[in-house]
């Protein structure tokens, strides 16, 4: 496929032979100053985050917030139920039996952290997103099998289909494609 009209192109996609080549190519794309680019591999390649210059994921804080929320709600609910909402003397147990609140508080802390993690991960990854430009390529099916790819998206300020095409080829990309929708 040849480089064609810059307006219609949504991304340029190149395939790389193996994880090591992908890693070095990612460094070069980063050094060339591209911003809206991505690497695609069927499994996470060790060292690629550093090669792409990605910041550490902040998901841990989201999970912590979820956990704190879950735990606080659980404790507050139990305190409210036994001291205000439905204060009953059951087997002589104290109303504010905080020791007995521990298991439920613990379980809901875990549940909150879990929801925080999973929902946070989806939001940070903008998933579900079924119509991403890279799906225009048939060759891209290999990205979940045995293919290693780099894509540069048209949203990047420096994007120029012809230049990106040549650049990706120069750093060892094979099957370089300019992706144009509805082709």
């Amino acid at each position, binding site marked *: 496929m040849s480089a064609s009209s810059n307006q219609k192109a949504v991304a340029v996609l190149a395939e790389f032979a193996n*994880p090591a080549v992908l890693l070095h190519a990612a460094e070069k794309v980063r050094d060339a100053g591209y911003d809206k680019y*991505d690497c695609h591999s069927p499994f*996470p390649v060790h060292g690629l985050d550093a090669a792409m210059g990605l910041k550490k994921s902040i998901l841990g804080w989201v999970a912590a917030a979820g956990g704190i929320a879950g735990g606080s709600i659980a404790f507050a609910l139990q305190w409210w139920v036994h001291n205000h909402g439905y204060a009953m003397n059951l087997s002589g147990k104290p109303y504010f039996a905080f020791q007995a609140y521990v298991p439920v508080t613990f379980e809901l802390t875990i549940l909150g952290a879990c929801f925080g*993690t999973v929902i946070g991960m989806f939001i940070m990854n903008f998933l579900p997103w079924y119509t991403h430009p890279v799906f225009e390529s048939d060759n891209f099916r290999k990205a979940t*099998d045995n293919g290693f790819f780099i894509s540069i998206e048209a949203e990047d300020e420096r994007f120029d289909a012809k230049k990106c095409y040549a650049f990706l080829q120069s750093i060892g990309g094979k099957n370089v494609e300019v992706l144009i929708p509805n082709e």
Partner: protein
Amino acid sequence: MAEMAEMAAATDTTQEPLVQGNHDFHSVSDTIGRIAEQELAKTPIGWYVAFTISASVAGLLGLQIFWLFWKGTGVWGLNNPAGWGWAIVNFVFWVGIGHAGTLISAILFLLRQQWRTSINRAAEAMTLFAVVCALVFPGIHVGRVWAVYYLFPLPNQMAMWPNFRSPLLWDVFAVNTYFTVSLLFWYVGLIPDWATMRDRATNRWRQIIYGLLALGWRSSNRHWSNYEKAYLILAGIATPLVLSVHTVVSFDFAVSILPGWHTTIFPPYFVAGAIFSGFAMVITLMVVVRWIYGLQSFITMRHLDNMAKIIMLTGMLVGYAYSCEFFIAWYSGSPYESGIFLLRASDQYAWAYWIMVTCNVIIPQVFWFRFARRNLVILFVVSIFVNIGMWFERFVITITSLSQDYMPSSWDYFSPTIIDVGMFVGSFGLFFTLFLLFLRFVPVIAIAEVKGVMPEADPHNYHDEH
């Protein structure tokens, strides 16, 4: 999983490889993906036979539940001292089985045990289905099923709330949290593999269904970065969760004042027993699955060997707990406490007690021998014995203490009815129905993770490229 790739570089060369045979990335996708992609007509006849039997037995469970709702809990063998019967025994049995799946997927992940990779998917599925079976029993044993929503803190017109100071309510939260977290953990692990299935799909339906499930996954490294973090966090929170679940289950017993139940050893003892029984179920299932689907190069003898070692270890922990209970009963000086343990081992339920000891403590000792850990027949037979033994453990705990408590005048012998037996068998039908559906439509091995632990996944293994 980058952590996994990191370890791949450091893999001990004296160990057997985790993936055997000449596999590359594509053949991994292919070998595993093909199983779920078989045309319905080409599904092995054995699958149809097994599915028909399981689904029928599960249907029988449904009929018996209907009968229970119609007649009341009198259809069970419950009597006056023994107000908790097989429903509780089965509940604890099934929850326990679930624990191995989480142990494999979470704890072994945190401990950097790469060998977990090819068995975690199926083990997690086993967890989910076992917890489904477990949840059936507390749901139906409440007697007044129309009031089952009292278990949850739902605002209602009676302005009534559940009692959070009761262990039975803790259990509701523990088991439901466990199910939810296990389901999300499993689903997150499946996303890259749904995408693999989507991209391999040759017909429209498969493409749409797997495509929807994959959520538009595009193997992006920006995604992998958050994804791996999510996986690590989920493993980190599932670890204390799994330990807490059987701890809370043991509180159902330990917080009461009944002799034989009111002991502090219960939480660790229950957790060890849960892992023990779960690994036995994993071996039971894996020995059959790898044989039927030809997955010997992924679920290797090394995996089975490691699991056999865990069974032996946890079996001895359980054995230690059995003896410790006796020691503490004697040491406590409480006549009721020592009495119940003497009765357990020598009186009307002695047969059950000694079945338990034989299956759980004595038989797994064969795993001291390497040939036993690597012989499929021995592995399978021992795992069945452990499953039986662990069911009897819960039977012994629940029934003996209830049948013979403080007042000898109210002692009685518990005999199950046909409905008790039928429901227990029926729960296996439900479990195997779900598991067979999983085998048929879901990638049974974590494809992306297996690729990640292969030597060629590590960029450092391509020296001439530098």
